[in-house]
């Protein structure tokens, strides 16, 4: 391994045979960390180590994983649950799928450690319904781990036991939101819950629950293996430990997954050095830096360090680390319509601003794209976005509002060009 780039996951991707237990044990010191934890550490020591690691949730919100686990009450007579969020539904994101395909045991081992830390005996992996094959691979890996004594009763000869159940979703973006996910796991519509109470107090089946993303959990064995502090130092910026798996897609030469030490590259370096630059040497026009919910950036804004805080400072977000690259040849109003259509389709309908607002924004964008835009449409869109963001039970509302507000603010002339003078202020859209 070269001194400058250290990766934890990606060198194991791409080869089917890497998913086996024997590969995991022989090439990745598999289950050594879990054994250390279960046989020599207290749950509090584990949580301390994870806190030290500066691991921040990889699902989108970037919440410190160690802190999340520390919120789970100690003792009590209710069972506690660990739920892995494998819904991977934020548009642009495809890292969890490869983590499951090539290192399923890394996830399982992370879950053993997490379950031990919070006192959970039965954990769930909620996986998006479309990942049928991946659900099967997970079940196979769970069986393998069970046969080897890493799951089930009396793990490593201790009193600790754990079972893991793979639970399939059925096609709903909102089930990636952790409380929508929990409702779905309970056999309900995936509608997000009112918070508080937070899942740490009342989550799955009314019991204390930690919900963690696949990549967050798969990072845990590395934290134990390297030590929290060393893991933290892999990150090149403060408050962000370890490595990040980036899902790079859109109009670059080499789309795919890349892993970087957190905060060690700018967005420009990721697009041009890792992604090989623009497909067909087209000019870069826009970048969606953190899944489709992230406010858009212009070509002039990509010298930013690609990590949570630097992106937040320039008004966007890292989200699930999914970068979508857009060239000069793309019609941005149409692309924004496409994004907004997604949120209109996926809004669960509980909160009025999101249910009504997303559809309204979608229909206005649709008419703009079909030559029927009206002069005040752009202001209406901006005002609608402002009335959805922050006014809903879950962050889907913000996710829908951010793109609309930012596309219009940064690329207004492109939208105005579609609202032709003839139509301006006259024709109404049928």
């Amino acid at each position, binding site marked *: 391994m070269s001194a400058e780039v250290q990766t934890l996951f990606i060198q194991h991707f791409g080869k089917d045979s890497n998913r086996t237990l024997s590969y995991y044990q022989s090439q990745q010191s598999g289950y050594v960390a879990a054994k250390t934890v279960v046989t020599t550490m207290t749950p509090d020591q584990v949580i301390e180590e994870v806190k030290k690691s500066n691991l921040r949730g990889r699902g989108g919100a970037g919440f410190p994983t160690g802190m999340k686990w520390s919120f789970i009450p100690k003792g009590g007579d209710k069972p506690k649950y660990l739920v892995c969020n494998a819904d991977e539904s934020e548009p642009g994101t495809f890292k969890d799928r490869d983590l499951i395909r090539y290192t399923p045991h890394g996830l399982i081992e992370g879950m053993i450690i997490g379950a031990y830390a919070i006192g959970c005996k039965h954990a769930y992996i909620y996986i998006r319904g479309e990942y049928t094959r991946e659900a099967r691979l997970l079940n196979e890996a769970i069986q393998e781990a069970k046969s080897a004594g890493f799951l089930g009763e009396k793990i490593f000869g201790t009193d600790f036991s754990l079972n893991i159940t793979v639970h399939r979703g*059925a096609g709903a973006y909102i089930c990636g939101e952790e409380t929508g996910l929990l409702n779905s796991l*309970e*056999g309900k*519509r995936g509608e997000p819950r009112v918070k508080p109470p937070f899942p740490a107090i009342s989550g799955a089946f009314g019991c204390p629950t930690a919900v963690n993303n696949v990549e967050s959990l798969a990072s845990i064995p590395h934290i134990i293996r390297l030590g929290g502090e060393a893991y933290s130092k892999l990150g090149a910026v403060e408050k962000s430990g370890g490595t990040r798996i980036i899902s790079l897609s859109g109009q670059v030469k080499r789309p795919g997954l890349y892993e970087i030490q957190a905060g060690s590259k700018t967005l420009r370096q990721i697009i041009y050095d890792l992604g090989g630059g623009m497909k067909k040497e087209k000019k870069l026009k826009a970048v969606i830096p953190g899944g489709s919910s992230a406010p858009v950036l212009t070509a002039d804004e990509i010298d930013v360090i690609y990590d949570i805080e630097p992106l937040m400072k320039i008004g966007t977000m890292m989200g699930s680390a999914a970068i979508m690259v857009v060239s000069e040849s*793309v019609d941005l109003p149409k692309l924004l319509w496409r994004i907004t259509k997604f949120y209109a389709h996926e809004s669960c309908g509980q909160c009025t601003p999101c249910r009504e607002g997303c559809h309204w924004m979608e229909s206005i964008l649709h008419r703009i794209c079909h030559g029927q835009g009206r002069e005040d449409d752009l202001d209406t869109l901006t005002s609608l976005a402002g009335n959805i963001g922050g006014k809903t039970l879950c962050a889907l509302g913000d996710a829908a509002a951010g793109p609309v507000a930012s596309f219009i603010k940064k690329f207004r002339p492109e939208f105005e060009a579609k609202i032709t003078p003839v139509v301006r202020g006259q024709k109404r859209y049928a």
Partner: protein
Amino acid sequence: MSTSVAPQESVLSPKFYEAMKALEPQYPRKTALILPALHQAQSEFGWLPKEALEAVAQYIGVHPAQIREVASFYTMFNLKPVGKTHLKICTNVACVLRGADDLVSFCEKKLGIACGETTPDGKFTLSEEECLGACGTAPAMMANDDYIENLDIPKLNDFLERSQHER
């Protein structure tokens, strides 16, 4: 399993009841089995006819309206019959940036149906799908449970031809 756990008059097979029996101990409440049960039931019919929803309701022990309410929330549960091959083309951002719109038009033309429709011979249903999580290998689609990635028109055409001639 020798003793059948299936009620005699159910439209669902004994396999359904056996699969559910195996899952029951994994959840603290039976209602948590609603999604697994719907997946299992759909795998028997290709979609979820009313009778299947009722049988699921009876198995779980809730009113059929509750099952319908849940099933209708999720796009993967087909409340109408679908063709033998259900094509779901992703038209979300990453796929559109790499030509998904052309794939949709190609399919519509070749199959003579619009998105959301089924061919008269019942072979194909065509749907537009939201992000499938295959953006690095875009454009992508699903044909029933399988992913087909790095698509282009020749590849899609080959696939349609092959499926067309399958029995």
